């Protein structure tokens, strides 16, 4: 197993495993696109295995409704 003695991420010495990253580089990526559908389409065009999640921001409550709720809850 490849390890890296880490001095940057934390003061304590910890062993960092790079095997998962090497696995990614040794394969052709299989991608999930989240956000701009354009990028997922561009991956598809390259023949890459890609699925897409049609991400939407959570609906935002109107300010006054939020105020009322914050008083009730």
């Amino acid at each position, binding site marked *: 197993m*490849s390890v*890296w003695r*880490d001095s*940057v*991420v*934390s003061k304590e010495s*910890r062993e*960092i*495993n*790079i*095997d*998962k*990253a*090497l*696995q*990614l*580089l*040794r*394969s*052709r*990526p*299989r*991608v*999930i*696109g*989240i*956000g*701009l*559908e*354009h*990028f*997922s*389409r*561009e*991956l*598809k*065009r*390259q023949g*890459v*295995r*890609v*699925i*897409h*999640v*049609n*991400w*939407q*921001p959570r*609906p*935002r409550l109107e300010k006054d409704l939020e105020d009322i709720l914050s008083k009730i809850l």
Partner: protein
Amino acid sequence: MPRIVNIVKKGLYRDSVHLLHISDHVRRLDGVLNAMIAMGTKLNKEILAREGLLSSEGSDAGENDLIIALKISDLADLNVILAKVEDLLSKTPTQDLEIYSDLDYALDTNRDINLALVSVPGQYAKEVVMKLLDRGLHIHLFSDHVPIEHEVEMKRYAIEKGLLLMGPEAGTSIISGVAIAFANQVRRGPVGIISASGTGLQEVSILLHRIGLGISHGIGVGGRDLSKEVGGIMTLFSIDVLERDDMTEVIIIISKPPSKEVIERVLDRISRGEKRYVTCFVGGDIVDLDPRLKGRISQAKTLHGAVLETVKIYRPDLYRDAYNKLWIEDRLLVEISEATSRLREDQRYIRGLFTGGTLAYEAMLILSEYVRDIYSNTPLKEDQRLLDPWRSVGNTIIDLGGGEFTEGRAHPMIDPGIRVMRIIEEASDPEVAVIMLDFVLGYGAHPDPVGVHADAIKRAINIARSSGRDLVILAHVVGSEEDPQIASAQEDMLRKLGVIVLPTNATMAVSAAMIASRRADQKLLLDFQRKFIEIGL
């Protein structure tokens, strides 16, 4: 009589690229004189106002509201046009893509997925990314406006799990030959790139490809990775990974100048490595290295220089040929010199309109040696920051990918709208001698970047001519023959428009300097070579 109509859809969100396509479609409908469908960000409202498309309803829209802004010839057509817009908004543009509405369900039913490409608005990025890291996915995070403390937290968590987190603000990665977000089709080979700059990675990978070398992987670590706050977390991790990657033999590290402490950390790490390295801290100082490392580690100040240094330490037999391929040939120098001789004396200024941030930065760095004061929205010196990024003064270099030009809009590599307007404005200024333009091809980018600027370039040249002036337009195309847009076809189109095409971004900048300083000669070229291309380590 033409009428301006704004309709605001409260709380309706559609992504910027989707809206760009809808706007293009609506503009072609019968009875529509102009149209823009966009989220109601401050920037989009400003552009609507400039285009004469904003009414009071649109002005009141918030950034989470969608504005349908139309200029129509007859109010009687409005209902038909609106019905079409509604139809376009309700459809997803691609039918052949496997689309999910629930992230967990998508991952539960597709367990072979190993990389997530995330481009949600920055304020939502952490929530999405942490969930993906928990599910063991590597991530390319395109989103910008991600708070730096979120970046540190996400990267630490990723490393704990042994996962790559490329980004935030990572425009480009190339993993096993696959172009992620904005990236070019380049051959695979022995050069690994770790880059805190998307267009830096694109330019370097393209120049390596053009001189016959190939890329193992290009890891985009995000523009702030080498800052003091982030401490180079992902760069150091990527070095470790590429040290163990069988295909990679030489590694290029690209960034704007990192903090001193982080440079030391990176140099310390690579000096203990086994592979060959070229560091390219664009604009940074060359550091004294242990002489024993000479031949294994090299340094460059420009992207152009980094490519040549790579050849020097990895394939010295290719150096002469590579050098010539990236240089300004005599024929081009003659063309530049002739164009310069046609300028009027009061045409002194350079204007650079860049879609690539690091390309803008590299250009400013080179220009700063030959011309005084270079103003910018991303200046080399803080006292040269443009007060109003929408108005150029003196020598001005603009990064159109900067936050002030992209809020709620697609990146200028996809949406040429702002640059097209700006080309005309620069051409109308009688003191302008030369305009520089970068054209980035590849996946993610516009399907015909030059074609979509052709009218503006023709108009710019005509505006100058009609006032008795000549205007020099320089361009550099970041693209390969294998890219969907085909680099040579885009370059030919530029030449037919009367544009001078340079082989690298750096040679475009030095050409602009030659033109503005009226020194289009070999002497300045040799000086440029000494300062930026061969640093004589």
